[in-house]
């Protein structure tokens, strides 16, 4: 129904702005409706303004800035309608060290209400996990899973 869509949209937009400002340490972001008069059919646009920069459409952002904006929106939706678990497969790949730290911190917060499962190659993200599973193919082509500690990572998993 229209009213529900509008209410959800506004709540998500509010949360999105919150996560965006934390991810970028400032700036503005805004979800806008392409056809506000037709709530049943309208699309959703994203306008962003990283700190100190001009307001622009999200397509002009850098690779890492796009991942940060997308993650902020996903986390916003997730906070409003938490699913029992979430899986993020190498979402941190385009991020620089400092943004990996912020991402990992937000994941920690979300893990208070939902189980978070992260796949990563980034050591800093690994440090933020409660437990680590290593997947290996010592037997070529056949996957095995072992529980690992961070300091074991280099020998066990470096191929």
């Amino acid at each position, binding site marked *: 129904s229209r009213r529900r869509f509008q209410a959800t*949209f506004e709540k998500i937009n509010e949360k999105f702005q919150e996560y965006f400002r934390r991810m970028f340490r400032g700036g503005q972001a805004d979800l806008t409706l392409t056809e506000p008069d037709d709530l049943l059919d309208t699309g959703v646009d994203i306008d962003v303004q990283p700190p100190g920069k001009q307001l622009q459409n999200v397509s002009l952002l850098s690779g890492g800035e796009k991942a940060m904006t997308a993650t902020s929106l996903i986390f916003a939706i997730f906070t409003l309608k938490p699913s029992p678990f979430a899986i993020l*497969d190498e979402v941190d790949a385009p991020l620089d060290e400092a943004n990996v730290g912020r991402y990992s911190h937000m994941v920690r917060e979300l893990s208070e209400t939902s189980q*978070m499962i992260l796949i990563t*190659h980034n050591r800093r993200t*690994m440090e933020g996990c409660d437990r680590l599973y290593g997947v290996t*193919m010592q037997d070529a*082509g056949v996957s095995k899973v072992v529980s690992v500690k961070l300091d074991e990572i280099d020998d066990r998993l470096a191929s």
Partner: protein
Amino acid sequence: MKLRRIHIVGFKSFRNEVDIEIADGVTGIVGPNGCGKSNIVDAIKWAMGDMSPTSLRGDSLSDVIFKGTEAYRASGMAEVTLTFENEADSWPEEEIDWGESIPREYRDMAEISITRRLHRSGESEYLMNNVECRLRDIRNLLAGTGLGKQGYSIIEQGQVGFIVNAKPSERRLLIEEAS
């Protein structure tokens, strides 16, 4: 409903039985390129009823069955079981149409597991707590407990930019899923 265990055998590169326990908090999965990390994500999506070969990174559904290596022959079957801890507050207030296939007593069980199997012959099976059921029953169970729509809770490798690069009409769908 908390996900407690993922059991995989014969699915993609997981020829042998593998059990992954998922506790509360943050669980990290690591390993070299090509070792099978994203295959675990596919296993979860598949067990929850994903019927699209391309979404499972293959050409046909039978691509999920272990196809063999230089040392081993292909498997005859792929099987994935997800075991959930059934918390009292998992169930929504309003009555869900479980139909006659999901017994009422499931709501009171401490654990609920869903299993999907695919045989080389093409035959597939679905089980709930080891009792055969239909795919629809699994979907009903998942829909009721917030696990149904996966749009925003499973982000596949390389897909994080999707929301940003998507058309405005596609982004709307994501908002709708959360309404």
